């Protein structure tokens, strides 16, 4: 159908539309009009991707000078491929409707295909790739540096974007890294020797270029051609590479000294935590390395590798890592922490020193993106509470909205099970984690559900260790064997290949009618990347609240930083983080309006307002007061009722006019009024 979104003609490749899709496009258009950033939450399965694509492409066609490019970032390869499929569909619709073959160039990038893409990426109208191509400075520098300023950037599935940012800026150094780095440095030295004998001019050329090259980069950035690289801060560009590391030999010598220093730092007996300035002071005191050459380390190494014409950069990953670390540690005095741990906490007898250089501020990595591009859209099915994202990513959105799922029938049924049938409070909290009664009741819940839920059930635990313990305990008590009478059991392991196989078998068992249960882990790969549509997931059970492992020193440092810099209390952040993962887990089962599923939160803490309030609105609004503290039996009764109702035929007519609209229905005054209420502004 062809839509009129506040005067913009939008081609939408379907016969019907969901009201929330219309509302979403409306907000999106306002964001683009304002040339600002937006945070939009809309449940998965309501056609978010096609709404985004339809609107932005229509906008691009209508205002080719205002928006020149769409950069669509998603997280997983299947997600990216789905976007491409939807785009293909939209393009087919365009050519069918307009009768002209479109001249749109879309480009999808993934690591296996990323050869020779640079020129193409500049000309494509739409680029689809993974987050890292924009957020990881090491890759962004190669791929995304020259993207036009008048691009719209979309981060889909962005609920974990802060972690991606942090990951791309953090470095871990072990003894193995240093050993490999040592080899790299030796190889560099030898290569330099060889070149010096055969082609000394090359090295002189490099020396000259080093002064020039950075100047060029500076000009480029000032004239707004490049995406800024957070690893290469602006100030560096105004300076020349310091003389101490300008010649290749001096630089290699410098690297050796730095390496020796790091080795000495790893020879610690106790845990050390320090800030970047402390580290810089120490390195100056001990081996007289100044801050300035450190800052140029990454750039200087790149230049050297280019000069030496080294083909396989991957072999030099260790020395690249070290020099990136050197540049980062000397560039940012804030937002990072250094933690040196001599051994793992679990195995204090085995020496395994690690130097963690951890980024605590996700806004550092994403800052260039917000600064460079006129509109950045952060969107996902679960972004609640919305206001936390602008705070931790440090940007000012012009729109923030959460959309609900309009439903002709309530196809999701969130239940909070807080008690066992014996009134034992159910919780995964630390004090009762080993409690036999809790584990037994959890087992009972799964057993009872396995008897009444058709086809597939997915259960999530808070961690691998917790799951392994519970599974062992259920095995000893014979609970698992009783469950096997109803369904086959598959369990996620830490081995991805093994788990993939289990997943496929799980689907097979759901498909052939036998029914199966998948035991899985929140924050694991399954919870983040696999959808359980229709009969692959008729119920999701979340055992416990998936808090992050709080004993880690890195996390503690990050929490302190959040408190001091962003005034976010530790508990608020931990709860937010736990609830976004819980929402991700339970949301895996509902992928559309024709789908249905139970969402069982098995922990009494979910009933509290501070937890419940952080769930996405589209889940929250279906939790009624009666289902806040259910026993297992009560939950089973409600679930039975729900499943029976849902099993009734559900036809298009049932939805039409309510949660599904024709063009005429959409244009009615009454409906337009209703639609304005779907978006929940904050």
């Amino acid at each position, binding site marked *: 159908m062809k839509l009129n979104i506040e005067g913009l003609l939008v081609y939408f490749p*379907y016969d019907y539309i969901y009201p929330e899709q219309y509302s979403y496009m409306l907000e999106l258009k306002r964001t683009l009009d304002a040339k600002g950033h937006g945070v939009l939450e809309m449940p998965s399965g309501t056609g978010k991707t*096609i709404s985004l694509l339809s609107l932005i492409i229509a906008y691009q066609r209508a205002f080719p000078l205002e928006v020149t490019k769409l950069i669509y970032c998603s997280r*997983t*390869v*299947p997600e*990216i491929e789905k976007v491409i*499929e939807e785009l293909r569909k939209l393009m087919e619709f365009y050519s069918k409707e307009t009768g002209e073959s479109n001249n749109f160039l879309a480009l999808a990038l*993934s*690591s296996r295909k990323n050869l020779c893409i640079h020129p193409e990426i500049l000309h494509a109208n739409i680029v689809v790739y993974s987050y*890292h191509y924009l957020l*990881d400075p090491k890759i962004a520098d190669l791929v995304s540096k020259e993207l036009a300023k008048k691009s719209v950037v979309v981060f889909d599935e962005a609920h974990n974007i802060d972690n991606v940012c*942090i*990951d*791309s800026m953090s470095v*871990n150094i*072990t003894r193995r*890294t240093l050993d490999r780095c040592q080899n790299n440095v030796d190889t560099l030295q030898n290569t330099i020797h060889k070149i010096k004998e055969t082609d000394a001019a090359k090295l002189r050329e490099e020396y000259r270029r080093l002064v020039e090259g950075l100047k060029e980069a500076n000009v480029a950035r000032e004239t707004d051609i490049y995406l800024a690289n957070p690893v290469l801060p602006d100030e560096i560009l105004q300076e020349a590479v310091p003389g101490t590391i300008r010649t290749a030999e001096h630089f290699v010598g410098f690297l050796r000294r730095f390496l020796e220093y790091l080795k000495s730092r790893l020879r610690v007996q106790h845990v050390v935590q320090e800030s970047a300035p402390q580290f810089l002071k120490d390195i100056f005191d001990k081996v007289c390395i100044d801050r300035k050459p450190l800052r140029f380390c990454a750039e200087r190494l790149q230049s050297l590798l280019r000069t030496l014409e080294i083909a396989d950069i991957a072999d030099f*990953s*260790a020395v690249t*890592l070290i020099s990136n670390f050197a540049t980062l540690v000397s560039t940012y005095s804030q937002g990072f922490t250094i933690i040196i741990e001599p051994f793992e*906490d*679990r195995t204090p007898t085995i020496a395994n020193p690690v130097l*963690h250089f*951890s980024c605590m501020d996700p806004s550092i990595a994403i800052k260039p993106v917000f600064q460079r591009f006129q509109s950045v859209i952060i969107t996902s099915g679960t972004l609640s509470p919305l206001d936390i994202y602008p705070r931790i990513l440090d940007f000012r959105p012009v729109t923030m909205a959460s959309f609900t799922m309009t439903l002709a029938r309530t196809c999701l049924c969130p239940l909070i099970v807080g008690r066992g049938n014996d009134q034992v409070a159910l919780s995964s909290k630390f004090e009762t984690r080993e409690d036999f009664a809790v584990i037994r009741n959890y087992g009972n819940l799964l057993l009872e559900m396995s008897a009444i839920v058709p086809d597939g059930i997915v259960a999530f635990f808070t*961690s*691998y260790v917790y799951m392994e*313990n519970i*599974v*062992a305990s259920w095995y000893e008590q*014979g609970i*698992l*064997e009783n469950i096997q*009478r109803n369904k*086959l*059991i*598959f*369990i996620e*392991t830490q081995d*991805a*290949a*093994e*788990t*993939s*196989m*289990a*997943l*496929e078998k799980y689907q097979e068992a759901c498909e052939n009618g*036998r029914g*199966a249960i998948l035991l899985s882990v929140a924050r694991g*790969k399954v919870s983040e990347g*696999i*959808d359980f*549509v229709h009969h692959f997931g008729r119920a999701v059970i979340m055992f416990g609240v998936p808090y992050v*492992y709080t004993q880690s020193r*890195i996390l503690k440092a990050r929490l302190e930083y959040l408190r001091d810099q962003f005034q976010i209390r530790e508990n608020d952040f931990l709860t937010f983080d736990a609830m976004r993962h819980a929402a991700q887990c339970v949301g895996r089962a509902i992928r*559309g309006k*024709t789908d249905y599923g139970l969402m069982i939160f098995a922990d009494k803490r979910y009933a509290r307002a501070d937890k419940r309030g952080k769930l996405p609105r589209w889940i929250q609004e279906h939790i009624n007061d009666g289902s806040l503290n259910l026993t297992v039996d009560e939950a089973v009764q409600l679930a039975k009722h729900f499943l029976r*109702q849902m099993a*009734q035929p559900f*036809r298009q007519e049932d939805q039409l006019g309510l949660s599904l609209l024709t063009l005429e229905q959409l244009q009615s005054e009454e409906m337009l009024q209703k639609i304005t209420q779907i978006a929940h502004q904050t």
Partner: protein
Amino acid sequence: MASLSEEVLLVVKKVRQRKQDGTLYLMAERIAWGPEGKDRFTVSHLYADIRCQKISPDGKAKVQLQLVLHTGESTTFHFANESSALKDREAAKELLQQLLPKFKKKANKELEEKNRMLQEDPVLFQLYKDLVVSQVISAEEFWANRLGGVNNTDPTLFNNKQEVGISGAFLADIRPQTDGCNGLRYNLTADIIESIFRTYPAVKQKYSENVPHNLTEKEFWTRFFQSHYFHRDRINTGTQDIFSECAKQDEKGLKSLVVQGVKNPLVDLLSLEDKTLDEGYGVSTTQPSTSNANRTVKESSNYAIIKRFNHHSAMVLAAGSRKGETPADQASETSSTDGNSRDSDFFQPPVKKVKLQEAIEYEDLQRENRPKTVALNLKKSDRYAHGPVPLQSQQYTTSQDIINSVNYIRHEMANYKPNLTQVVSSTAASSAIVALSPGGVLMQAGAQQAINRKFLSLMFSG
């Protein structure tokens, strides 16, 4: 009664039944007992009529064997030969164990077949009612004329029957019971053994290799239950165990399955992430890692359980579909390489393409083009959902009534408009309040009725 052609499989002497000595005969189709010195059987049961056999516990003084019939009756035999009572009983038991399942299936099959015939053929059913139900002839006589026809009608009918899968919990059915003297008893039935064999072909292979040359059947199963293979949470210690090889084979099978990878790209966790961070970058795993090297004993046992369950489920699933598997879908997989060469960048194998299409499809956004089906029209959907509910009282309201009335009230409320022109003036209202206050004109005793009337009339004019 005993026809001469019957084959006698086993004869056991000195078997008492109802305190009478006699001889037990196990024949091809029935078991019979005749008192000593007599030439006829006083007890005779077709195997097909027997539901199960029970034996007295090993420690008991009397060595007995009881047969329970489908009708619920039972017959008990007491093996009275002092020297070999136990051996006799075991022999009879073992033979029965082999014979009964054969007949059980036959009996069921026959029963099903009869049932089916009656249902499918109304004329036959009428005949059955006329002759058998009215007791003109017995059921056996009735079927004696028919079943000949049944067995040679259509052999494909029997071959086409659906393969029955294996219960996922068959191992749970052999939960050990303590026998009271520090031992464990496992109850195995022919069904369970078949399930084990079908699910774990390796065990079957071991069985045919070792039984009966090296081990008796009993020894074989005893070892099976003692092996770490059965108790997967135990870590393999002994290598003399004949099942350690099975475990190795399983391990191999599992590995090859894992190496093969998955067909559906959407569940392939290995290729989920596009660009994983290079080694050394990223916030190191916040969870304490449990790599193989530094697992505690408990952790590796937990891990073993998890692996075992995955493997067990996969094997059960495979056993159910082993027959239906054809190389056809592999062929379609390989043939895909030739398609769509015009744009190699966008080339995707068909499975993937189909899965992706499925994943992005919004069936409700498209115009329906399926054949119209007739929907089930439930007049009282709550009755369907709850089942019959006993009527509590005469004023029973269905939830539909409640919904209707709520809707009605809501409607009324929405349309409610105060009739502002008909309201009493403020002076009249305040004088009425004064009059109605304690001490007011209308608040004197005896005027109760009048107040009510006046008050009401005021109310209604509002």
